[in-house]
């Protein structure tokens, strides 16, 4: 379908009249999902969604429109709408489409698992049933809220009247289960998942064990007294923290005064062992792609280097505002969205210890294994960070007493400057982006629990 989709995009881009420029972004996906519950299949879903998003740029204004109608008539009408919308946008010197570039972007390996095409629906159903069974079989698990296998095979094409044209394909497969553990009066829930390019790389037993453990190990959790103490983020939670941080790391957020890093470029913003890298080409990572949502080749950006803030992340417009080049960080939520800058695959470099070593170094600390209310309690503009937490108390570096209904809080710059170690257990987590979480020790945060 590859050639067809990019040809269709070129047909749309060729409608550019006079000095205007047109960009066509087309998506064609095939997806499948099976959800297991109580030993049986609860839902099966299959779909083949498709759509086109079109931007028209003229006289320093850009208008956007989208459609699911891929007929000649539908595509013609979406160009007219984008052109009409262009009239109402405020002219902006930085606005416009990505410039054409020479050559082809280097290959990003491993976006497609060729074996995935031959996986029969029956195998996917069996996988979900096995995931459900294995989760339920775990000691202490009373029920499984759901066990899900899901996959997609997506073709993405882009063409601009300035000369960008290309398409790529990616396959994705992922699964998760939600275990419910109970013990007398207490009930707890555990969520875990796995993701890969194809089903053959997913491990149902491992996901089942991890979901079950997340639920069982916090049974009987209680609050602890309020105290300032060291805090360890597990990889899952560390990725959630990166998700908040990333919102403050785009050039656009900084230009618009919506970043805690405004006016801090070149300054020390983290401990001197902290380096943070955004890389759109990591093999196997969720956000890897040859080019970004505007057709600009993806790349690697050193954001923080040994504590110094080195660079922000840019799309074409935010880069043009500073007279520099895009870092290939334009993303879209889909064909219905305009591109905006955001991180691709973002992660701290490991500091050379295993997770066990990091925990031993922490001695007595709160090991946070789940955050609650991150979207409300963490503010990438002010840097305020105060979120609910569940986890275990580390004593002599060993996880012990389960803890819940506490909050952990500290200004985000203090958290960054307090990072003592980042372990080597990195895991890519897709929380509306792609974040490489690893066990991370923070010297001190306020844990809010009992007492006033």
């Amino acid at each position, binding site marked *: 379908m590859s050639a067809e989709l990019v040809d269709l995009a070129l047909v749309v881009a060729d409608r550019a009249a006079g000095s205007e420029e047109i960009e066509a972004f087309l998506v064609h996906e095939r997806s499948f999902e099976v959800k297991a519950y109580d030993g049986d299949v609860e839902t099966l879903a299959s779909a083949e969604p498709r*759509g086109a998003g079109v931007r028209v740029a003229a006289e320093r204004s850009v208008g956007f429109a989208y459609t699911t*109608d891929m007929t000649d008539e539908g595509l013609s009408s979406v160009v007219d709408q984008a052109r009409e919308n262009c009239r109402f946008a405020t002219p902006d010197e930085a606005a416009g489409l990505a410039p054409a570039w020479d050559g082809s972007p280097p290959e990003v390996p491993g976006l497609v698992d060729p074996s995935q095409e031959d996986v029969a629906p029956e195998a996917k159903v069996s996988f979900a049933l096995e995931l459900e069974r294995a989760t339920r079989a775990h000691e202490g698990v009373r029920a499984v809220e759901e066990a899900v296998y899901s996959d997609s095979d997506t073709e993405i094409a882009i063409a601009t009247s300035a000369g960008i044209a290309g398409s790529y394909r990616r396959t994705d497969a992922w699964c998760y289960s939600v275990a419910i553990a109970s013990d007398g009066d207490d009930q707890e829930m555990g969520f875990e998942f796995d993701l890969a390019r194809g089903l053959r790389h997913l491990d149902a037993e491992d996901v089942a064990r991890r979901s079950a453990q997340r639920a069982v190990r916090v049974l009987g959790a209680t609050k602890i007294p*309020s105290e300032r103490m060291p805090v360890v983020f597990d990889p899952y939670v560390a990725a959630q923290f990166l998700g908040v941080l990333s919102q403050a790391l785009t050039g656009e957020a900084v230009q618009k005064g919506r970043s805690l890093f405004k006016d801090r470029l070149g300054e020390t913003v983290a401990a001197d062992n902290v380096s943070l890298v955004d890389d759109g080409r990591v093999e196997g990572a969720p956000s890897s792609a040859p080019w970004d949502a505007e057709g600009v080749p993806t790349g690697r950006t050193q954001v923080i280097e040994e504590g110094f803030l080195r660079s922000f992340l840019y799309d074409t417009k935010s880069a043009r505002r500073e007279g520099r080049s895009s870092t290939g960080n334009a993303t879209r939520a889909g064909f219905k969205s305009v591109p905006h800058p955001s991180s691709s695959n973002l992660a701290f470099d490991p500091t050379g210890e295993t997770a066990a070593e990091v925990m031993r170094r922490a001695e007595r600390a709160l090991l946070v294994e789940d955050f609650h209310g991150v979207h409300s309690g963490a503010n990438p503009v002010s840097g305020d960070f105060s979120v609910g937490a569940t986890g275990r108390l580390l004593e002599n570096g060993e996880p012990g007493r389960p803890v819940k209904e506490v909050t952990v809080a500290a200004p985000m710059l203090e958290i960054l400057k307090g990072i003592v170690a980042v372990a080597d257990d990195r895991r890519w987590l897709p929380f509306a982006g792609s974040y490489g979480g690893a066990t991370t020790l923070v010297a001190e945060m*306020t844990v809010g629990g009992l007492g006033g």
Partner: protein
Amino acid sequence: MLEEGVVKQVLEEAVARGGDMAELYVENKRSTGLRLDSSRVEDVSSGSDAGAGIRVIAGERSSYAYTNVLTIDGLLDAARAARAGLSEGPTPVADLSRVEPGTTNPVEIDPARVPSTEKVDALNEADDAARSRGGEVVQVTATYAEVRQEVLVASTDGRLATDDRTRVRLGVQVVAARDGQIATGWEGPGHSGGFELLGRRPPREVGASAADKAVKMLDARSAPAGEFPVVLAPGAGGVLIHEACGHGLEADTLVKEASVYANRQGERFGSERVTIVDDGSDAGAWGSFGVDDEGTPSHRTVLFDKGVLVGHLSDLLSAKKIGAEPTGNGRRQSYAHLPIVRMTNTYLLPGEDRTDEIIGSVKRGVYAASFAGGEVKPVTGNFVFGMSEAYMIENGELTYPIKGANLIGNGPRVLGVIDAVGSDFDRWEGVCGKDGQHAPVTNGMGTVLLGKMTVGGTEA
């Protein structure tokens, strides 16, 4: 949207190999959105998203397929995909009869007929008003969104329902800064109706209010951590009810006994003051509709009656499992999603307490004026929600703003500490996320006193 003959043909194809029930959901959604940022109208977008989903239910199993190809061939292909795996004889399709909607949301001014320049003007007015509130206002983002969603639902058991939903929303986000301090303020009025929203909620007032919140919060000091009495502001405070009570009473979680409220109907959770309803038929409210996304009329459901748990929210499947009538709470984000149980407009009904007396009764506590959002685990009832605008209460008076604070607690237990409910009922519009699907919802309540809550802050 589709001829009845086509609808019937698709349904017949879907159950041609058996199954207990098949349902066709067709949606045509046209959206327009404008976004002003840094005093520039940066994004002007519009689009049309049309598709159809077919669900076949056989025993405990639901199969679903959807397509953007709305020709008879596209629909029949989807019907065949949805029935894959079935191999019995055909199930009969009942004659279709029209479902009466639970309410009608009037549209006085069709937003699609309003020139784009008026929408641009509205954003500029909100921007001007916000910036006029002082030099500390450094950034203003204003958004205008209109959606018209036409829906058709038909099923093999004879339901045929249509709905035509127009929603309009204005949003203003303000960033204020002073001496390295940064604070944000947000207002986002919306309704089920037309462009008349902007007459009722003038963009100037909305912009000014968001700016005032941000500027006030510049003086915020770090919030204390610990246990305090908490006063919730009218309207926005309803997030608590949504999170603490609503989600746990969605029958899909009840059926799976994944809710802390499972098997507890008739139990007392709060005082006589606590009556909570979910009402999708509240005409004009942001979370209202005529029929839900399964064709069930919208409905007012009492969840807690004077402190006693008496109700739940359900869609077709969960209602069948618990042997009750569906409450009209089956909603989906779009044709690409299966319906799930969702809240609509969830209200703690007004009480008789006076606002000044509620605040006056608190010696040392927290007043929560706006929330940034919240989250709950239905299995335990534990919730967290962040306060984007909050104040300390000392000796019965609001003294200074506090920042970086959130409330954490447990749903059933929090109902037990509702010690006062004000008569100053107000609504607050939001977007609720569940299982990856978003739905417009309203939270509503008057001023509420919670006797004791855990506040998470940075001061131990």
